[in-house]
């Protein structure tokens, strides 16, 4: 469908231009808010790559975020420039994902989800106990003179969100993406028609770890303080899942829509109902998941396939 492809391209470019020029006309509060939206887009797209595309739901992708955050913070403290710390944060998460993917992707369904949840816990406990390196529960504080400016962090996070979206868009339209979706639909049948399911899943898993690692490093520089609870956070992982489901899992636009809408809603509800905003947000999310299982995107853009016999002439 070339028309839709061009529409997507134009819309994406317009949004990117808007995001790139936003620091010129919004104050620091809104820049911080947008930075967090970009962070959730990047994390959502990364999660989407493994869980949305293959159906392997990860409850522990924040493990890579946490590893990246610690790697970024420690490298910055060791005197590395911020951009190299970010790249290395992503690289370390990616390297870690190779053996982990080979181990965990032998498991299916809830077993994989639980293994990933355990992985995040292992990361949190390791960061708590390895006090020589991580300062344990005290966390790591980064001195202001080491940190890049808010605007730099803003553009770093925007770059990561854009990169993650472009990766997902490319993968979705590629043969690799088709094979991942076949795995999601029916792994046995996919294997039976020549799809190397193990190699494909591990590749998707490794790719999906790269972005959270780099995002974690930028997050450490943005907040200037991290501890095991803040970066190996199951709550953050739930937020990522909710955002992708809210927007539309396994799609390119889903995490963008989900992150935008959920973050804006959260901010608005927090301002109006400070005591009950999370409960109200929960009700809204529940309604979307119950009544729009394909996410908001399915409401905006229904796939043009109805019953076969209502679309095409009958075959003999």
């Amino acid at each position, binding site marked *: 469908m070339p028309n839709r492809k061009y529409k997507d391209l134009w819309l994406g470019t317009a949004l990117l231009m808007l995001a790139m020029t936003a620091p010129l006309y919004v104050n620091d509060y809104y820049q911080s808010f947008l930075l967090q939206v970009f962070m959730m887009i990047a994390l959502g797209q990364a999660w989407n790559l493994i869980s949305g595309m293959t159906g392997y739901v990860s409850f522990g992708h924040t493990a890579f975020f946490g590893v990246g955050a610690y790697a970024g913070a420690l490298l910055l403290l060791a005197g590395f420039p911020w951009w190299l710390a970010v790249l290395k944060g992503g690289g370390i998460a990616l390297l870690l994902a190779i053996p982990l993917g080979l181990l965990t992707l032998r498991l299916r369904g809830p077993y994989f989800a639980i293994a990933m949840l355990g992985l995040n816990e292992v990361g949190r406990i390791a960061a708590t106990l390895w006090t020589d390196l991580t300062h344990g529960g005290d966390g790591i504080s980064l001195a202001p003179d080491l940190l890049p400016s808010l605007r730099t962090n803003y553009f770093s996070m925007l770059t990561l969100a854009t990169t993650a979206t472009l990766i997902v868009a490319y993968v979705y339209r590629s043969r690799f993406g088709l094979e991942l979706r076949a795995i999601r639909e029916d792994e046995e049948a996919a*294997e*039976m*028609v020549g799809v190397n399911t193990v190699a494909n899943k591990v590749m998707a898993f490794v790719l999906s770890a790269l972005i959270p690692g780099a995002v974690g490093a930028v997050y450490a520089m943005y907040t200037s303080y991290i501890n095991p609870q803040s970066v190996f956070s199951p709550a953050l992982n739930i937020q990522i899942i909710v955002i992708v489901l809210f927007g539309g899992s396994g799609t390119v636009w889903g995490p963008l829509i989900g992150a935008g809408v959920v973050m804006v809603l959260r901010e608005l509800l927090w301002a109006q109902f400070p005591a009950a905003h999370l409960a109200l947000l929960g009700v809204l999310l529940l309604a979307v998941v119950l009544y729009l299982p394909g996410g908001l995107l399915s409401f905006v853009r229904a796939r043009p*396939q109805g019953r076969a016999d209502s679309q095409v002439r009958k075959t*003999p």
Partner: protein
Amino acid sequence: MTTTACGPDHILCTRDLRRDFGGVQALCGVELHVVRGSITGLIGPNGSGKTTMFQVISGMDRGATGSVMFDREEILGRRPSTIYHRGLARTFQLSHVFPDLTVLENLVVAGSRKDRSVEERALGLLGRVHLQDYAPVLGKNLSYGQQKLVEFLRVLMSDPALILLDEPAAGVNPTLRQTLWDMVRHLNGLGTSFLIIEHNMEVVSDLCSDVYVLSEGSVIARGAFDAIREDEQVLEAYFGKTREPRAGRGAPS
């Protein structure tokens, strides 16, 4: 039962194939040979081990012992995707169409990654069974018979030398069923070998040059359909008793 040696004219040979599930012997030393370019039938009562044979040969079940030679190469224990790329494809007893992929995507995913004209090839196959207009339709929106046909077309994407069909016509309407059997005959005429599990004995008699009968995990008869339908062991396996003297055409039917 005489044992046939595996020769160059055989595309598939299994030897002493055994599979047990917690003490239950599903396959007890099965020897089976498929002659290159033939349509071989695999019949037997429910629970006789036919589908287990397919699971083992295709690599879906890698817990068996013995030997499976495909095109003079040992494939037992190999991954299904590796076996598929070597030229052995199979369909399932129940439809395994990818429900949220379009019909075209269902076929393309089974084609070669290196094939630049994979979409044209898929559309060509759909055209042969008048399904080309269904290319953008999701798999789940097809009728069951159409799904089974799409699944059959899907395995043709790799141009396999041997196709294992597990009750391909079950649940398919007579028109589509005829289309399916016509394609099998056509492909067989072009040199493709088939091993077919089928309960319709008329089809077995019509299509298969060689028939194996499995019962309780063992081959109890092998030969031309006319010969095996008279076999006492086969009748006993199907009906649980030795046939009474009778007039007319023989069982199983």
